[in-house]
């Protein structure tokens, strides 16, 4: 009878032991799953990298019953590892420490892609006391696993000093690896998010800079336009007709023109080109125009005017200059006194259809040399004759083939359109430039002025 009792007891004991082992195993698995769940909740709780790292380390230290935990990330460009932050009693001190690939336990793990258990840190050849020295936290033992993303080591996850003086074992290693696995993806996402935030910031700054520049361009454009004659583009009386147009480039280049009656008989006109672009050019142009208006006096000649304006401009040692052409037309006699300050020679369009460059003694542009000399020249416009003044925005207009329009082509065009009115002549030239450019953007201001001595009636 005792045999049966013994047999049953042993069976029960065996069953109990089996169940117990099963229980322990399942308990272990349950613990693992709980940990995974907990970790995954943490990983999904934030997309911000710093926050994420902190949570991973908090979780790892907690689950692994360790005093401290660190994540050390790999910097592929420099072949180094770096601490972002660390927690534990001395957490705030481990801010930015760099290790060479292969240096210390972390370096070894990163290099070899394998986990390491070190239960006696001081006596391990691979151990580098760099970090613990800096922090003053003596390391007794540690467990380090690689964080793998698609086969590449992107960092290592470490836990230090298992509580209760205990050692790390393989179960611990498996558990930490379980934590490390989803960490990789979460880190990648956080890094992508960080990159995205950075791009957005750069975009914001670029947009702000662009808006600032555009408003500056607008200001330059407004300044330029405010200095044009109020009755632009046409000025007409019985004896002369003027038609003038300014086509600014996107980046205002400081072309200018103006004309007004000095008295009942004399018409003054000027056209010029400042060497720079944007607001500085617009301001220089504004100053020049103001001096011109101010220095113009009855009986004064064009050369005297340019000389005085030049002297004023040069007082401030400008970094810019302005080419300029100006003239005073006697509306009754047709006599034109003119002066050239380094400007493109205008075309004299005779009534018979010829277009000839108006040459003469060259002066230099305004603002170049305070002792520069300017010279008056003179020519007579017969009834029907015209003077076409323009800036190099026309002759240097480019198309996609880097071909320029050239003065020669302009001369030929002017001759061809010579039978037309001032307006049709100027608009015709502008249209021709546009079609020549074939959509290629206009890089320089265009200014063009046609002044005609009318044919006497009868």
């Amino acid at each position, binding site marked *: 009878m005792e045999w049966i009792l013994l047999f049953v007891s042993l069976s029960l004991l065996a069953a109990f032991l089996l169940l117990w082992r099963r229980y322990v195993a399942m308990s272990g698995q349950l613990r693992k799953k709980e940990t995974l769940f907990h970790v995954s909740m943490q990983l999904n709780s934030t997309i911000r990298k710093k926050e994420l790292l902190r949570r991973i380390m908090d979780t790892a230290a907690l689950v692994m019953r360790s005093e401290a935990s660190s994540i050390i990330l790999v910097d592929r460009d420099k072949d180094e590892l770096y601490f972002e932050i660390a927690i534990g009693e001395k957490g705030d001190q481990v801010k930015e420490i760099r290790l060479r690939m292969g240096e210390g336990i972390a370096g070894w793990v990163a290099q070899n892609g394998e986990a390491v258990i070190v239960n006696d840190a001081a006596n391990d050849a691979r151990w580098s006391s760099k970090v613990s020295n800096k922090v003053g936290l003596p390391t007794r033992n540690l467990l380090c696993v690689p964080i793998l993303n698609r086969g590449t080591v992107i960092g290592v996850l470490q836990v230090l000093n298992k509580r209760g003086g205990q050692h790390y074992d393989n179960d611990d290693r498996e558990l930490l690896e379980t934590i490390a696995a989803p960490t990789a993806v979460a880190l990648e996402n956080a890094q992508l998010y960080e990159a995205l935030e950075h791009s957005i910031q750069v975009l914001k700054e670029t947009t702000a800079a662009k808006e600032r520049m555009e408003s500056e361009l607008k200001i330059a454009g407004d300044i330029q336009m405010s200095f044009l004659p109020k009755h632009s583009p046409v000025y007409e009386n019985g004896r002369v007709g003027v038609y003038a147009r300014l086509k600014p480039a996107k980046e205002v280049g400081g072309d200018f023109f103006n004309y007004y009656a000095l008295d009942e008989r004399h018409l003054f006109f000027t056209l010029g*080109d400042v060497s720079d672009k944007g607001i500085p050019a617009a301001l220089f142009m504004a100053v020049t125009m103001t001096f011109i208006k101010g220095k113009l006096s009855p009986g004064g000649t064009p050369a005297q005017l340019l000389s005085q304006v030049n002297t004023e401009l040069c007082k401030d040692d400008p970094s810019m*200059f302005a080419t300029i052409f100006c003239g005073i037309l006697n509306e009754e006699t047709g006599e034109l006194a003119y002066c050239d300050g*380094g*400007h493109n020679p205008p075309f004299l369009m005779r009534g018979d259809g010829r277009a000839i460059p108006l040459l003469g003694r*060259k002066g230099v542009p305004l603002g*170049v040399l305070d002792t520069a000399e300017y010279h008056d020249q003179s020519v007579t416009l017969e009834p029907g004759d015209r003077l076409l003044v323009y800036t*190099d925005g026309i002759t240097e207009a480019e198309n996609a083939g880097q071909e320029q329009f050239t003065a020669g082509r302009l001369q030929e065009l002017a001759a061809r359109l010579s039978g037309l009115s001032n307006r049709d002549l100027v608009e015709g030239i502008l249209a021709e430039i546009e079609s020549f450019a074939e959509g290629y953007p206009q890089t320089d201001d265009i200014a063009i002025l046609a002044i005609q001595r009318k044919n006497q009636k009868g």
Partner: protein
Amino acid sequence: MTVDIIQEHDSVVLVLEGRLDGNSSPDVELAFARLLEQRQSRFVFDCAALQYISSAGLRVVLTAAKKLKSAQGKLALCQMSEPVKEVFEMAGLHTILTILPTRGEALTAIRA
């Protein structure tokens, strides 16, 4: 646009090659500024390989001339092609800049 810098004893020859326009003028400006910092004061701009110069390019040359004037330096330009020379003449700059046919003459002129 490329700028070659050749030291000829106490003078510097800047050999300009290509197009001198709004895009390339900063390079020339920079090269010149650096040489000025090194206390160079005698310059020749060799324009033999200069295909084209725009008003922005003229501005660089004029600025260089101005800076040299205040530093009591000398500048001469040489070997200009006809089209490039015309651009300078149209701006009236041939009346205030020293423009000579050969590099030798230019070097002599700045040492005078």
